[in-house]
C-alpha cells in the first residue's frame, strides 16, 4: 500500500486527529498526527490485519529551530516559543510497506503520548528524545535520562539554543 492510501484510511477512521499529508520537497513524505492521539493511531496501524505495521523502525525527536530568535550580546541565542517534532518510521515485515508519521508539539508544553505499549522498541528511543530534546512522553513506563548523566540539570543538549553549563556538580567546566 502507498502512503497516500494509508493516509486516506486513517483520515476516514480518525478524522480530526490526522492533521495533514505533508509532501516533502526532497526525501520522504509523512503523515502529520495529533500528538495526543498518536498512541491510538499506532495501535490501529499495528493491529489492523491489512496494514499490520509490526515493526517500529526508528523514532526520532527533532528541534524545529523556529520561534522568535533572541540573540544576546555575547553571540548566544535563545528561541522564544517554537516547536519540537517526533518522527516515527514504521514498517510491516509481512505486507512489505513502510510509512512515516510525524507529530509536532509546542516547546512550552511538549507532551506526546508514548507508543511503548504498541512497540516495546519505542522505550529507549523515547527516553533518548526526552533526554536530549526534553519531549515529555505521557504514559511512558520509565521516563529517565539515558545518555546524559541522571543528575544533569543543565537542560536538553540537542535543543538548538542549549548553552553549556558553567558548573557541573560544583566543578567548573571546561576545566
Amino acid at each position, binding site marked *: 500500500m502507498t502512503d497516500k492510501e494509508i493516509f486516506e484510511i486513517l483520515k476516514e477512521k480518525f478524522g480530526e486527529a490526522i492533521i495533514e499529508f505533508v509532501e516533502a520537497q526532497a*526525501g520522504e513524505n*509523512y503523515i502529520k498526527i495529533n500528538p495526543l492521539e498518536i498512541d491510538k493511531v499506532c495501535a490501529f496501524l499495528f493491529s489492523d490485519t491489512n496494514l499490520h505495521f509490526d515493526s*517500529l*523502525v526508528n523514532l*526520532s525527536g527533532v528541534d524545529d529551530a523556529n520561534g522568535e530568535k533572541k540573540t544576546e550580546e555575547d553571540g548566544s541565542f535563545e528561541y522564544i516559543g517554537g516547536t519540537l517534532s517526533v*518522527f516515527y518510521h514504521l514498517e510491516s*515485515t509481512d505486507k*512489505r510497506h513502510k510509512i512515516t508519521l510525524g507529530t509536532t508539539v509546542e516547546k512550552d508544553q511538549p507532551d506526546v503520548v508514548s507508543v511503548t505499549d504498541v512497540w516495546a522498541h519505542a*522505550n529507549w*528511543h523515547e527516553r533518548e528524545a526526552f533526554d536530549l530534546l526534553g519531549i515529555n512522553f505521557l504514559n511512558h513506563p520509565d521516563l529517565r535520562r539515558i545518555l546524559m548523566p541522571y543528575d544533569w540539570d543543565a537542560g536538553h543538549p540537542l535543543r538548538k539554543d542549549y548553552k553549556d553549563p558553567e558548573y557541573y556538580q560544583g566543578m567548573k567546566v571546561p576545566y
Partner: protein
Amino acid sequence: MALNTEEMTLNMGPQHPSTHGVLRLELRLDGEFIVDVKSHIGYLHRCFEKHAEAMTYPQVVPYTDRMDYLASMYNEFGYALTVEKLLGLEIPERVEFIRVIMGELQRIASHLVALGTYGADIGAVTPFLFCFRDREKILSLFEMTSGARLLYNYIWVGGVARDLPPDFLRLTKEFVEYFKPKIKELNDLLSFNKIFIDRTANIGILPKDVAVNYGITGPMLRASGMKWDLRKDDTYSVYNKFDFDIPVGDGRMGTVGDSWDRYYVRILEMEQSLRIIEQAVEQIPDGDVSSAIPRRIKPPVGQVYGRVENPRGELGYFIVSDGSVNPKRIKVRGPSFVNLAIFGELCKGHMIADVIAILGSIDIVLGEVDR
C-alpha cells in the same frame, strides 16, 4: 538459623572485562538467579548528533567511523547512501562494487571480533587469537586502500576517497581462498565444542515475535528464525547482482533463538560474505571513482531515512535538511543501541554466569550504543 532470603542488588561494570566497553549492569539477584537486569548506558557519550549539526555533510563522515569502531566502513557506507538519497545522486558502478567489497570484508572482520571475544568471555582463549590473526589480514587490505586500520574516512558522499591499489583485487582473492578453510578450523575448535555448547545452548532464548516488537535486527533477529536481511529485503547499492543466501537459526543445539544460534548464524554469514566478495571481485567494472563526488553539498529542504544492513543489524540515519550546508538533525538508529534494550528480558531466570554468555551473543559496541 534463619537464612537471609531478600533480593540483592549487584553492580556489574562499568569497568567489567566482559561488557566489551563501559556498560553498567544493575543485577537484581535472588541467590544466584537473575530477577531483573537494568542497563545503564551513556558512559561513552560523545555527542555525535550535536557535533554533526555544526559540520558540513562531508565533514560528518569521519565522525560516523567512531560510532561502531569495529564496522567503520559500513557506517560510512550507510551515511553516504542516505545523503545520496536526499540529493538524488547517481553513483558510478565501480564505486558501488568497491563499497560492497569493503562492506563485506568489514562484516567478516567484525564477526571475527564478535566470535573471538565471545569464546574468550566464556573461557576459550585460543579461538580469540585465531580470529584476530585472520582479522589482521583484512585490516591490512583496508590499510593499503585507505591508509588506516580502523577509522578509514574512505567512503565519501558520491564516491570513495581513492581508487583501489593495483594489487588489491589479487590479494582479496588470496584472502578468500586462505580464509575458507579457517572457518572449518573455528568450527572444530569452538562451535561444536561440547563445553561451549553446554554454556550457550538454551540460554537467553529470544522468540521471533518478541524480537520484531523490540525492533531487533541483524544476526540476532535471524538467529530467532526470521529470514530478514536488508541486503535482500530492502536492497541497496548493487547487492541484487549477487547470489547469496540468508542463514537463519534452526535450534540445532537447543531452541531456536538461543545464544548458540546467535553465535552460529555469524559463522554462516561469514561464508555468505565470502561468496559475495568472490563474485564482486570477478565482476567489478572499470571507471572513475571520484567523478560523482559533489564539490559542495547543499540538499533541498526535506528529510530522509536511509538504512543498511550493518554487521550488527539495521543501521539507520534520519537526516533533516533545512537547505543549508549543515544538517539540521542527524539521528542514528544504531543496531547495538536497539539490540541492547532487550537484554534485561533475555536474562530473567538465568544465572549470573549466563549474563556474560547472553551479552556476548548480542555483540554490542558501546561506541554506537552511546554515540
